[in-house]
């Protein structure tokens, strides 16, 4: 068994490349899904009934599709409609869209329970539209929803592992490659799990720090 780990250690370069890819794919997907999710939340809280319904259909659809199938469809399915992504873009696009649905739902939930006085004071002082959302509502939403948003980020990190099926060179993909080349399944996958755990600890750290900032404001 120790031998397995020493083989994995010999190929740590590949593992670290995979780790790096996982980190930046998860980071970009987190940013995109938060931005798209914020837009979805705005739409869900909008006065326009048709817009609300359309976004609701999108969110429900996303939540019912297994992520694996979504990634398949974006990478293998869309080309038959003439939309062609490379595997990395396909991976990031499907991760972002999929998690945007959850982010949107989380932010909407926080928004509904946000005291309406904050927004009203904003309106009374001349904030409106996007500026009202950006300056007054969104910061309160993030502070209120940070633990749940953190969970979703961890979900994004773990979902990146699915991208191995469309050959994105992320952590699981690299671990899998090492294990199939040298037949070290235990060592390779345990090493990968340890690295995923490390990423999640870092996310947790950021969440705790943000929680601390939120506590100062409560």
């Amino acid at each position, binding site marked *: 068994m120790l031998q397995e780990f020493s083989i994995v250690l010999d190929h740590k370069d590949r593992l670290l490349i995979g780790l790096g890819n996982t980190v930046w794919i998860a980071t970009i997907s987190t940013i995109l899904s938060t931005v798209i999710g914020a837009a979805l939340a705005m739409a869900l809280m909008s006065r326009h009934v048709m817009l609300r319904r359309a976004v609701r259909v999108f969110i429900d659809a996303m939540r019912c599709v297994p992520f694996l199938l979504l990634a398949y469809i974006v990478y293998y399915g869309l080309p038959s409609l003439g939309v062609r992504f490379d595997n990395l873009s396909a991976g990031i696009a499907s991760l972002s869209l999929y998690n945007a649905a959850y982010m949107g739902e989380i932010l909407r939930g926080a928004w509904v329970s946000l005291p309406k006085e904050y927004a009203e*004071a904003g309106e009374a*002082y001349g904030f409106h539209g996007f500026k009202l959302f950006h300056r007054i509502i969104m910061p*309160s939403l993030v502070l209120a929803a940070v633990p749940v948003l953190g969970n979703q980020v961890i979900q994004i990190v773990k979902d990146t592992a699915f991208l191995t099926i469309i050959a994105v060179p992320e952590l699981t993909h690299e671990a899998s490659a090492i294990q199939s080349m040298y037949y070290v399944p235990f060592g390779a996958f345990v090493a990968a799990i340890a690295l995923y755990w490390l990423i999640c600890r870092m996310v947790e750290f950021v969440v705790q720090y943000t929680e601390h900032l939120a506590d100062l*404001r409560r």
Partner: protein
Amino acid sequence: MTAEPHLAHRAAPASTERPVIEVRSLWKKFGDLPVLNDISLNVERGKTICVLGPSGSGKSTFLRCLNWLEKPDHGEIFLSGKRIGYREGSDIPMSAKEIAVTRARIGMVFQHFNLWPHLTVLGNIIAAPLHVQHRNRAEIVAEAEALLRKVGLFEKRDVYPAKLSGGQKQRVAIARALAMRPELLLFDEATSALDPELVGEVITVMEDLAKEGMTMVVVTHEMHFAREAADEILFLDRGFVVEHAPPAQFFDNPSSDRVKQFLQRFVR
């Protein structure tokens, strides 16, 4: 209290003959319930009007119509001669942006302070001047600090509202309103949510503003403030103007029995 440089522009002679706020025959219903019936009021520059009345009399709704947080069913409101809510000389409603521009000319102080919890005291005060009025940051910060000194809270500039007492929050909220350089200041029961021993510190600031010539419409239950600081009293009951008089007449010689009955509860 020292004279603040930023208050100077209010002392300048009015460029227009029109009152700061002019309300003509305001009507409003919530569903089938009439809350405002034919309310009219003129507020001249530098005057303080106190709106009194029992709860449910429509005072707050009236105040909230003045900056269009509530939309009246009928009637017209003019801010320094310009109609609020509708484009000039037409019945086309203002866009959200146009209403926002109008609102930025009116300061409002709420019963529950409504400070933004994610911003520091200073952040609360400079937010609207910075992001709505797009004024110079250094100038706004200097002005905000002068206002904080004025309300006696300069040392709290970097603190979050959650760490302040109710009276301190309300003084910050007043500073936030003043930082907009408003033509008109609205107070919606600004002391009603405060512990009795904290009311005084907020009333003092309000009295100073009245003396300095700020134009204010104040919904309040503080009879002492109304008697000392108001130029006129508007008494509402069930959405009707029951009495509209100078404070001396209102308190000492009211014409309506309803007002007499109301005032009896406040006689010490």
